[in-house]
């Protein structure tokens, strides 16, 4: 196996011998376009993303990319080196060791994925509601690709999702070498034929994969960060199969589906067959008044206290990190102990696992737990749902945290707000629409 297959290197990352070896092709690093420049690693073209510096190695004033500098500096005077991707990947036999059963709806999705992979160059959007079992749907397609000696990449914008997926995939595919790559992942090898990675890691690959699967494609930061979309496109081989998984496609994808430019498979039913819990919009006109004073309206506190009497756990979504802190204090004064998690929390993984093991009954969180996490039996409250961080996709995903287990397929989803926003209404409507479509099937 070639450790450099499909990888993209900077000048200083290779030894002088490797630079001249035929396995590498040189690519211009910063390309002159008709107007402006483009960094060929991250695809940025904005002028303010480029800098100039007197380069002591070549003695000239050189252009460099300021956008992807966290992964090493791309200089105009030094080319990028792309490792050849013509490598024989192992053909595994009888690779799928998963003894679960796909439901009828999941089977439809799985068949469509296998069909796209047999065709070679193809695109497919798998539009499946939260809790439809998207990962399981991928299994037959992944098995088919690995058995036919293709290199597969499963990319997702979130490191949490990578951490959760890798062990599940290793159980289902015990013979396959699977590498999980994210910011500071323990896996250092990058040469397996099956790679699970965050989309940021794709900046290090060029024409590497025969099959590119992007999970949660509408999640932050992938959907608004052009350079990640550029990287995802470049990391796949020119004739690759591209599969996108999402529960809440953005406008751009919906539009392409409507124009019939993007084939779609639509799965509006959860794997346990029960409908999605429909969010209740709870108007609370004094919410801004109370929030300004770092208090919560009595009605919300009472709702939380009442909820805590029931057997279900409670997830409370809040718009900001500061708010989780003072809301925890407010609840403490009503003798309710609340755990809090946010993106910068070093103990976030432990807190989430302890909540899943039912060691805590109340968790305050920012939008980081909006997707990719499963708790068996929870109610979900969103406080200040009118805040701009809660867009339609986020609210649909948040509502999708409730009722994920077949033993308790229902849950109470409440959006507390001081005035309806379009996002709330759209989220509500799209859930109702999904349930209606799911009933017929």
């Amino acid at each position, binding site marked *: 196996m070639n450790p450099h297959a499909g990888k993209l290197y900077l000048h*200083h990352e290779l030894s002088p011998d490797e630079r001249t070896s035929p396995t590498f092709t040189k690519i211009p690093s910063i390309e002159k376009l008709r107007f402006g420049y483009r960094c060929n690693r991250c695809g940025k073209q904005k002028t*303010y*993303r480029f*800098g*100039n*510096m*007197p*380069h*002591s*190695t070549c003695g000239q004033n050189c252009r*460099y990319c*300021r956008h992807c*500098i*966290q992964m*090493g*500096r791309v*200089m105009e005077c030094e080319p990028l080196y792309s490792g050849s991707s013509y490598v024989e990947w192992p053909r595994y036999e009888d690779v799928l060791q998963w003894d679960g059963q796909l439901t009828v709806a999941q089977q439809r999705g799985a068949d469509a994925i296998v069909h796209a992979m047999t065709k070679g160059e193809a695109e497919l959007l798998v539009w499946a509601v939260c809790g439809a079992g998207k990962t399981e749907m991928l299994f037959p397609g992944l098995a088919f690709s690995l058995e036919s000696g293709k290199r597969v990449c499963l990319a997702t914008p979130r490191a949490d999702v990578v951490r959760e997926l890798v062990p599940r995939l290793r159980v289902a595919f015990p013979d396959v070498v699977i590498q999980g790559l994210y910011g500071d992942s323990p896996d250092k090898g990058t040469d397996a034929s099956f790679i699970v990675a965050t989309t940021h890691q794709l900046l290090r690959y060029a024409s590497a994969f025969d099959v590119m699967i992007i999970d949660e494609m509408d999640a932050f930061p992938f959907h608004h960060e052009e350079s990640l979309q550029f990287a995802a496109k470049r990391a796949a081989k020119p004739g690759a199969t591209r599969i996108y998984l999402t529960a809440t496609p953005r406008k751009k994808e919906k539009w392409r589906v409507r124009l019939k430019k993007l084939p779609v498979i639509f799965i509006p039913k959860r794997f346990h067959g029960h409908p999605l819990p429909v969010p209740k919009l709870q108007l609370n006109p004094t919410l801004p008044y109370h929030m300004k004073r770092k208090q919560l309206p009595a009605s919300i506190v009472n709702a939380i206290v009442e909820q805590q009497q029931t057997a279900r756990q409670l997830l409370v979504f809040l718009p900001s990190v500061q708010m989780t802190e003072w809301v925890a204090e407010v609840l403490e004064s009503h003798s309710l102990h609340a755990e809090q998690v946010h993106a910068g929390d070093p103990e976030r993984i432990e807190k989430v696992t302890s909540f899943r093991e039912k060691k805590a009954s109340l968790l305050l969180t920012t939008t980081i737990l909006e997707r990719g996490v499963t708790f068996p039996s929870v109610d979900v409250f969103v406080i200040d749902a009118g805040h701009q961080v809660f867009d339609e996709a986020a609210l649909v995903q948040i509502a999708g945290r409730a009722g994920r287990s077949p033993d308790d397929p229902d849950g109470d989803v409440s959006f507390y707000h001081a005035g309806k926003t379009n996002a709330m209404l759209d989220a509500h409507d799209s859930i109702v629409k999904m349930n209606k479509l799911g009933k017929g099937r």
Partner: protein
Amino acid sequence: MRCYVCFEEILPEVTWSTFLLPQKVKKICYGCERQFEHIVPACPKCGRPDSTGLCFDCERWGMEQEDPLEQNVALYQYNDFAKDWVARWKYRGDYELLQSLECQLRSLFQKTEWDTYALVPVPLSGGRLVERGFNQSEAIIQSLGQKSTNLLRRTGTEKQSKKQRRARVASSNPFSMIDPIYTPVVLVDDIYTTGTTIRHAASLLKQSGCPQVFSLTLFR
């Protein structure tokens, strides 16, 4: 104009002073600039924060022999935001990031009234210069709009940032002189931590006949 740190658009605020007086063009947004901390009150010698008189470290430097350094002036405290800034600028090599502090650095330099002295950059070893592509001290002098005078050469290659104070103070002098100088000198570096690097260079300059050595750093 966009902020050189976070790439967001800088919205100019309109007050009577910005309306009536000629404007300094800042290349950093308000939100990023606020995260740097000014040094007040400071040790009059090294600029260490939270010290009203001469600080303990400066006393120690002067105990055994005469301290070669007259005074150090620093722009901001070396807090977590500054650490990230330095990591991106120096170790990642984002040369243009320095422009975000250019305006503040110039006004600090004007206050010191050192503009007639020779500005001497702290040199890098050859290997490190190839790795980074630029010398950070020379970059600071350039952004001040001054000319740098190269008087020193580095022979050792050890990194100070990986060591504790005791190991730093005890380390041998990594510099050697190229040319002697007989006028006052301002040494320029990015960070003053224990002052060992600056004092190594200063003692060498003093030995060769330089009357006074000052130093200017971005962070303290």
